[in-house]
């Protein structure tokens, strides 16, 4: 058995090799050396052309500003979640992940329903202040991009920082108090420096998300804004200039790799420092407590919940008949289309792919986490690379690389959960690593001296100690798979749509019923995900204190 255990590291290495590096290398080779000789003109070109330079610059600064804004808004909430005990705290924290699953095009609709020129908010303001023109017009402004980035990434920052904050040793702050430090001084001199690794980790992760932002910039930013990712797509698909697309992809990968290297360093510091025990959260008692908790929950409600609610409202029919018309129509194949798929089946497809993605990403991510924890820290940034790689570049890579038996997987449905896993694995690693590093090696040794062979040590010690973070990792894998669209649309059969591809199919056609059904399907997607979250949360095994996962 021991022999087989030694072969386990091969699984992630083969996985990353086959489904990441091989396709990526293939597309880069085809782009740079179509005739067999490398022509790197495109790489130098992107650094000469003013347009690309300004795209680089925009990509960079919008990511920085988005990151700063996200952190500024999420940090106070992280404090509240780390410090106070209030009803539905866990549920609220989990539900805050919902924006993650929604396709950008749906979120764009939600924002327009809420703050568009004829949206709810402008309507109210116009009525109250008797204004001729809608006072709020964020349409196609940088503010819209920033707002959407905060909307998507708020929960990432909240979850990382609050989980860490809970584990900061309270004694230190109290020691400072005995030394005469005021509340403010304690925050600046003790808490903030201790939090820095968590803040850095959150910042770099949010930065990478926004640096590689595609849908938000394309759909909400409008034609005047383009990030690298948008430009890569335009070059690869619309213009079909593969060398430029590949050069931009390569730049994006190299840049993010450097950043990841910094990130994983802060990350390993994070994992070794905090105490394994959660400080007891205190109840909300004083007016200041109430103000803090209430204020932050209000921010969360306004920022995260109102757009989602606007979406739900829009999915209902307001024309007088049955408000659930669009939901009902989802179940009827009116046109006799061969591609009609009842929503239950779309839900089923999504859940099936999500289930497979959870299994793949947990198994592979777990092995990766063990590799990284076992003195292979340099592997960590490599495992994170898929997060930073343009989907269309990699998708084209699949087309040319995976075309020969036994790897003729180009049209195989198995590629869907595999592609989802590629994105989910970095999340699994980030979630599992801290808990893995927190397991005292002596605990495993103790089990060995008590007669447990390596397999049983893993089953009776590691597994139960990691089960909690594996559930959190499962939530992320589930979320990523349920919301993923880009890879799925390349592969999914028309008679096998997932919920996001069904949404896009409705949105591709004119007509009120199509639009309504798209929003109804989006609402269903949120509902299915919420139920999924709650079920996964329910699975929590025991209540041990080693659940400091979260990235």
């Amino acid at each position, binding site marked *: 058995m021991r022999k087989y255990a030694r072969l386990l590291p091969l699984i992630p290495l083969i996985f990353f090799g086959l489904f990441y590096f091989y396709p990526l290398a293939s597309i880069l080779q085809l782009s740079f050396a179509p005739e067999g000789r490398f022509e790197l003109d495109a790489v130098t070109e992107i650094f000469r052309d003013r347009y690309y330079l300004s795209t680089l610059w925009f990509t960079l600064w919008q990511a920085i500003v988005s990151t700063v804004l996200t952190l500024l808004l999420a940090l106070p909430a992280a404090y509240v979640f780390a410090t106070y005990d209030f009803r539905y705290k866990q549920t609220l924290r989990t539900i805050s992940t919902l924006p993650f699953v929604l396709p950008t095009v749906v979120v764009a609709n939600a924002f327009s329903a809420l703050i568009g020129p004829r949206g709810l908010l402008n309507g109210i303001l116009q009525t109250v202040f008797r204004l001729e023109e809608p006072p709020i017009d964020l349409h196609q402004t940088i503010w819209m991009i920033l707002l959407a980035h905060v909307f998507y990434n708020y929960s990432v920052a909240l979850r990382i920082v609050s989980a860490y904050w809970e584990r900061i040793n309270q004694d230190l702050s109290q020691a400072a108090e005995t030394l005469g430090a005021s509340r403010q001084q304690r925050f600046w001199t003790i808490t903030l420096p201790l939090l820095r690794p968590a803040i850095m980790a959150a910042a770099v992760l949010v930065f990478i998300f926004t640096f590689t932002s595609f849908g938000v910039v394309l759909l909400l930013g409008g034609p005047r804004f383009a990030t690298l990712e948008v430009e890569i797509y335009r070059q690869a*698909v619309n213009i079909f200039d593969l060398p430029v697309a590949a050069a931009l992809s390569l730049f994006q990968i190299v840049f993010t790799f450097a950043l990841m290297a910094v990130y994983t360093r802060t990350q390993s510091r994070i994992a070794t420092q905090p105490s394994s025990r959660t400080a007891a959260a205190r109840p909300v008692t004083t007016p200041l407590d109430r103000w803090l908790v209430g204020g932050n929950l209000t921010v969360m409600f306004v920022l995260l919940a109102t757009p989602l609610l606007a979406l739900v409202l829009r999915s209902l029919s307001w024309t007088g008949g049955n408000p659930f018309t669009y939901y009902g129509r989802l179940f009827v194949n009116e046109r006799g*289309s*061969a591609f009609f798929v009842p929503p239950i089946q779309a839900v089923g497809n999504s859940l099936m792919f999500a289930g497979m993605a959870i299994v793949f990403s947990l198994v592979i991510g777990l092995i990766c986490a063990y590799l990284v924890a076992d003195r292979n820290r340099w592997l960590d940034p490599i495992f994170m690379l898929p997060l930073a790689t343009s989907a269309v570049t990699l998708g084209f890579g699949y087309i040319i690389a995976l075309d020969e038996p036994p790897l003729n997987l180009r049209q195989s449905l198995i590629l869907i959960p595999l592609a989802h896993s590629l994105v989910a694995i970095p999340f699994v690693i980030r979630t599992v690593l801290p808990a893995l590093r927190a397991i005292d090696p002596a605990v495993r040794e103790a089990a060995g001296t008590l007669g447990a062979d390596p397999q049983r040590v893993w089953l009776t010690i590691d597994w139960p100690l990691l089960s909690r973070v594996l559930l959190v990792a499962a939530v992320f894998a589930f979320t990523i798979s349920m919301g993923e669209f880009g890879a799925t649309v*390349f592969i999914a059969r*028309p008679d096998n749509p997932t919920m996001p591809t069904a949404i896009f199919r409705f949105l591709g056609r004119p007509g009120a019923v199509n639009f309504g059904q798209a929003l109804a399907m989006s609402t269903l997607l949120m509902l299915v995900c919420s139920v999924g979250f709650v079920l996964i949360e329910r699975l929590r095994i025991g209540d041990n204190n080693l659940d400091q996962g979260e990235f």
Partner: protein
Amino acid sequence: MKKILTTITLGLGALIALTACGSGEIEPVTLKLVSHDSFFVSEGTLEAFTEQTGHTVELVPLGDAGEMLNQNILSKNNPLGDVVFGIDNTFLSRALENDILVAYDSPALADIDDSLKLDPENRALPVDFGDVCLNYDLEWFAASDLDAPSGLADLADPDYAGLTVVENPSTSSPGLAFLMATVDAYGEEGYLDYWAQLVDNDVRVENGWSEAYYEAFTRYGGDRPIVVSYASSPPAEVLFADPPVDGAVTASVTAPSSCFRQIEFVGILAGTEHEAAAQQLIDFMLGKTFQEDIPLNMFVFPSNTTAELPESFVAYATVPDSPATLNPETIAANRETWISDWTDVVLR
């Protein structure tokens, strides 16, 4: 006379196909039909093909039209399927230049509208067409003093300031089509001036059709009653209305030189191992059964002139008299220049 000939040819074709099948000359195979993700057919349509020929059809969707074409080019040494559906005239040259299609002089071409045949070698065979036109909100214009627009020129009229939304030609295919309509209408010298006027008139640009239609258009809570969409959108609005409506709610501007005709093609992918069966599928897709199934599934018009249009299309869809049709070589030669010049004028 021509009609008789056609009938004979078709009949012969069918006979050949039938005998071929009957005598077992073509083994029943599974054909892979590569398409973009907006490909839809009714239940029973492809089964009819299987009944006729014994071949089954497996669908291989590959993303949007641009993604699909590029993937076919990337995989041309080892094609992803046997037949491709949905290469349009704006990208036709890219497909032809990269030699991904093999020619097939289908007997069914006899019934196809000649104006749609852009490839003299018949590597790409026209299967349907749709006209990208201005659509407007009838209700909005009924409530307004303003007359509905009657042509491109109206959009530059200050009375129409702030009423129009178009799509970005560099990211949207109707956007590109509409840009070409303006190139055709105003010439290469004049189209940029026209767009400059639209900019002065506060034209709104969205990156995709969905955002333009479902966010900016007044029918869906936006503030723009004029949107670039398809001549077939009005019948869709009726078919998918909620609650049901008695008459049209939107209309399209179909005046001469105000629309651009997007033509979609089918073709046999070079390297297929089932060329004979693929030819049968092409014949089928150009034939009446499939052609008549096209409108209500994909909201475009059949290329086969003998195909009958569904009622809603007859009632609410107008086919423009003389839409712009630039030849594919001109498009290929100028597409990037037009887009980048347009970008300079409209977005910068």
